[in-house]
């Protein structure tokens, strides 16, 4: 199970809406308590592809985020990105570029602008498994 607080969800959603029509992206960090992953901080990073169909995290911002996580005693949990016009599910490219099977990959779909959908996935090669996400 992975938990995300409502304020961080809204932060992610607001950023994703503000970057339309491009994909938005970032990192998530937090703590691991038994089987549960608790997201304590959401990082909003620049999509260096500036594309509605692709994203790449800015390495400089990634480095700054990693340092910030360390400073605050958080561990990297994974990343998030938006799908402006497609569902909340990993695309073939998402799977191909998901190198870390330990990470959670959150995908925020804005396909229905009024009803965004956020799901979290673990990705193992070409297989993606949805994990329980609780927004509280």
């Amino acid at each position, binding site marked *: 199970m992975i938990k995300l607080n409502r304020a961080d969800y809204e932060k992610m959603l607001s950023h994703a809406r503000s970057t339309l029509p491009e994909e938005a992206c970032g990192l998530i960090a937090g703590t691991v308590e038994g089987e549960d992953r608790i997201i304590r901080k959401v990082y909003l990073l620049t999509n260096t592809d500036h594309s509605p169909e692709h994203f790449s995290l800015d390495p400089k911002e990634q480095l700054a985020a990693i340092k910030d996580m360390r400073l605050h005693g958080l561990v990297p949990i994974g990343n998030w990105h938006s799908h402006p016009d497609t569902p909340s599910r990993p695309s073939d490219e*998402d799977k191909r*570029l998901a*190198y870390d099977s330990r990470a959670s990959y959150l995908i925020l779909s804005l396909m229905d602008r009024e009803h965004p959908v956020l799901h979290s996935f673990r990705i193992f090669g070409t297989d993606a498994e949805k994990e329980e996400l609780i927004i509280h």
Partner: protein
Amino acid sequence: MIITVSGKSKEVQDNLTVAQLIAEEQVETPEYVTVSVNDTFVESGAFKSTKLHDGDTVEFLYFMGGGR
């Protein structure tokens, strides 16, 4: 010499290169790793020729990206 790797202090042999450190650390998918030394990014083509020095701080960053 002592260097810091991903926030942890580590003793390594003198004149260790970035490429050797990647191998020593058993970095997964090294072809997709970006390395910074003292906050400066090292081009992947320079991994073999870039020697580390006592007190250096090294970070490994994994490429993260995707598409629709």
